[in-house]
């Protein structure tokens, strides 16, 4: 997985777009060889324009939250990296308003036995809609509200906030 991480960074430094980065990464890993695969959400942030250009390899969709409202970002998933499907990934653009937050996360945050994954994403949207002061407080609140004290899976959450 470390090699995938560094390859992704290298492609990003070359100035490739998220779609091209995922297309390239898809060539570096084959689940049939060693059982490894990865879901990857790749984003290119334009800070001044408040936009993020996204491509998605099998990852759950990010959520944008702003002024007490939150929405799921419609970003079409291609297969996870490692499947070698061969068809190119698609890109979409999301705009994050001033003081808005883009939240990306791993599946352990929203998955729960006995329910469809959308229900967990809905819970995330509700938790993300609260005005919480700092970004750190918001992420703490999200993790507490969605997993309680005993998360069943390891969890990663990333928040990107535009402060103005």
């Amino acid at each position: 997985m470390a090699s995938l991480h560094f390859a992704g960074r290298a492609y990003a430094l070359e100035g490739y777009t998220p779609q091209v980065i995922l297309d390239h990464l898809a060539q570096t890993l084959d689940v049939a060889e060693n059982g490894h695969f990865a879901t990857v959400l790749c984003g290119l942030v334009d800070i001044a324009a408040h936009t993020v250009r996204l491509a998605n390899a099998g990852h759950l969709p990010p959520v944008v939250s702003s002024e007490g409202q939150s929405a799921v970002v419609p970003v079409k998933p291609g297969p996870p990296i490692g499947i070698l499907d061969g068809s190119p990934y698609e890109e979409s653009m999301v705009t994050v308003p001033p003081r808005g937050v883009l939240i990306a996360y791993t599946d352990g945050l929203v998955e729960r036995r006995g329910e469809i994954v959308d229900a967990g994403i809905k819970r995330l949207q509700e938790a993300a809609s609260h005005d919480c002061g700092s970004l750190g407080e918001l992420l703490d609140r999200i993790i507490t509200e969605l997993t309680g004290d005993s998360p069943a899976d390891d969890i990663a959450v990333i928040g990107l906030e535009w402060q103005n």
Partner: protein
Amino acid sequence: MAELNTAGQDGITVRTRHQDGTPVISVAGELDLTNAKEVRSAIEAVVSDHGQLIVFEVSDLTFMDSSGIALLASVTRQVREVELRDPTPIVRRLIEMTGLDKVLRMTP
């Protein structure tokens, strides 16, 4: 023949039969990190034996996490075609959201 039964809350059952020469693997219960390896070994022989079509019958698969996605993903690389028969809404949605619907077929 692939047979697997695990007891307990997270139990999973795997059974294989052949239908007109095509292996049909029934997976029932909850497929997750705790049992994905066992399921993998239970179906390994059938999968590596068969390059064409493999059917997973999953009408009684009530939960699956990313370990299940990993398992299905690797099978799609080993055989020409993977069919997922009668997925529950929970499994169907997870397959769609992880883009695996591009590389396997769900019926109906």
